[in-house]
């Protein structure tokens, strides 16, 4: 029983970082229908810049993290403005290719600059401190990740529902022509969306980097986050968080009871199964395609 609870708890802990990446991808997909494969690498660049200013320039944690988030917002907005907006005849495949291309460029730059060897980033909370909840142990970093993930989800949910900007983002997604006619600057909305999404991704990256810090560190969280977002229907914020926790928990249960070797594959098997039953995810509203 303790083993089971421990597996579930570590599943939730791991799921939190998937949830943040999933949220970041959902925000972009919701407004612009672009699957952003560069999400992880956008966060990676911000994380490595944080590492650089912390290690070599002696910034304080507060300044470095605030700077990282500001840089992430700028990077997201810049990529949308400079690259995505320039695409002619955008279609799903073309956008996927562009974001994969951006992903390769960003990862190439980071690993050219810093090399492939693992780094250790100093972080105010050590990933090795643990907190006991009953008889189950979690590290304090995992608790922080969990809190951040839930906070971000709540804030985004409220933001999209009640703030003027959030409503404008929804309007842009539902019908960008009508939104433009109502006086919304849809281009700017898209840019802001990319900025927000990049900040969320950067939070995930900063919370992962104390555990592992090398140029490939964002691959796995990004793919799992994407899988979680797809499971939640790609347009639903709570759906992607639910999917992320589900994937995290199943992955860990599978790892501890069935086979530790195939732990990282099981997420994709679940995805394929879920998609076979519900082709547009668990929480997506059904929509009818026009011919």
């Amino acid at each position, binding site marked *: 029983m303790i083993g089971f609870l421990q597996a579930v708890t570590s599943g939730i802990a791991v799921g939190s970082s998937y949830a943040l990446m999933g949220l970041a991808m959902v925000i972009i*997909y919701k407004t612009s229908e672009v*699957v952003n494969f560069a999400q992880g690498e956008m966060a990676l660049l911000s994380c490595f810049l944080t590492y650089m200013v912390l290690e070599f320039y002696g910034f304080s944690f507060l300044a470095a993290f605030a700077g990282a988030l500001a840089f992430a917002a700028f990077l997201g907005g810049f990529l949308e403005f400079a*690259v995505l907006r*320039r*695409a*002619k*005849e955008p279609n*799903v*495949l*073309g956008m*996927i*290719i*562009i974001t*994969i*291309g*951006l*992903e*390769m*460029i*960003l*990862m*190439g*730059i980071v*690993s*050219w*600059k*810093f*090399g*492939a*060897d693992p780094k250790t980033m100093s972080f105010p909370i050590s990933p090795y401190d643990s907190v006991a909840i009953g008889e189950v142990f979690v590290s304090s970093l995992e608790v922080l990740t969990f809190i951040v993930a839930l906070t971000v989800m709540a804030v985004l949910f409220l933001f999209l529902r009640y703030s003027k900007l959030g409503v404008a983002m929804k309007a842009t997604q539902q019908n960008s022509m009508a939104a433009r006619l109502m006086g919304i600057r849809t281009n700017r909305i898209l840019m802001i969306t990319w900025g927000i999404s990049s900040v969320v991704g950067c939070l995930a990256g900063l919370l992962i980097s104390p555990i592992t810090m090398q*140029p490939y560190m964002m*691959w796995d969280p990004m*793919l799992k986050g*994407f*899988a979680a977002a*797809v499971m939640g229907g*790609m347009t639903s914020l709570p759906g992607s968080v639910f999917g992320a926790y589900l994937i995290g928990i199943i992955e860990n249960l599978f790892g501890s009871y069935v086979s530790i*070797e*195939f732990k*990282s*594959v099981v*997420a*994709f*098997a679940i*995805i*394929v199964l879920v*998609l*076979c039953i519900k*082709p*547009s*995810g668990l929480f997506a509203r059904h929509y009818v*395609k026009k*011919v």
Partner: protein
Amino acid sequence: MDMKRDYYEDVELFSSGAVVFWFVALLCALAALPFLVKNYYIYMANYMAINVIVAVGLNLLVGYTGQISLGHAGFFAIGAYGTVMLMTKAHFPFLLALPVSALAAAFFGFLLGVPALRLEGPYLSIATLGFGLTVTQVIGRMSIFGGRQGLHTPELSIGPWHLDSDRDFYYLVVAVLVFLILTARNLIKTKVGRAFIAIRDADIAAETMGVNLTYHKTLAFAISAFYAGVAGGLYAFVLRFIEPEIFSLMMSILFLAMVVVGGLGSIFGSIAGACLLSWLDLELRNILSIPYLGGWLEALSKSYFSITGVSNIQFIVYGLIMVLIMLFEPLGIYGFWIRTKIYWKTWPF
């Protein structure tokens, strides 16, 4: 000039005598190539030819049928491991092992095509991506496939001939390549090919016109996987050694990049894209030995970047090519070729 006057002109393999002449000239050039160039370039030609096979197959799926696949490295791996396993464990001859393992890949393609029937866009991309990752993981973790250590390929002989050098192997690869390209070109001129294109353009409309979506979508996946399987089987013998890390997600992405850079929905484009990217792949592996540019990059890396990470420049180059092609020429190299052709045909105007 390019007007089609009747059905037979649309479906014929060669549209004029000039095309036949150039095709024969190309075949002669391919046959003469091993006698003219150094061994390294023959290795490169083999590598290119294999990538061309995958790219043409993937183009049938992505460019003609309009489905996304980010998991073709999986089919590639099935082809490679299938061929080597059948030859070492079951002592199949190569000419039997290759088609059998390609058919196995096609079967997996069919299996993947079944859930893909109901999926599109991001859903399809994550499903295929998951498939590719799963295949690599399963192969890497099972000791029967050599696990992480990988497998060495057996001696290759076809009938009385022993193919033990790149030069011998080159003819086999090129023969398979020409056969598969002609097959693909023929296929898209048939009823099946037209059904693929109809599905890409508007699947619901195609269904109302009597195109069987289930049959044709799974068929597209199976054919595409078959091509990848054949290429995988040949690739094992080019490398002479296979391990699971080769068949990574990056490989699937590169296959997709070849198709997109070359031009979606064009066989010529796939050939050009695959040749360009595999040439870049081989050249950029030792980027510092490129004349002039290498020294400059070394100095740049030493002063601003790190010298250990210099090989990662190839990712930047690929990424730039992918992004720039999509931004400025969505039809890829093929689109560029068409525009150049029209420009010269109508020259003074």
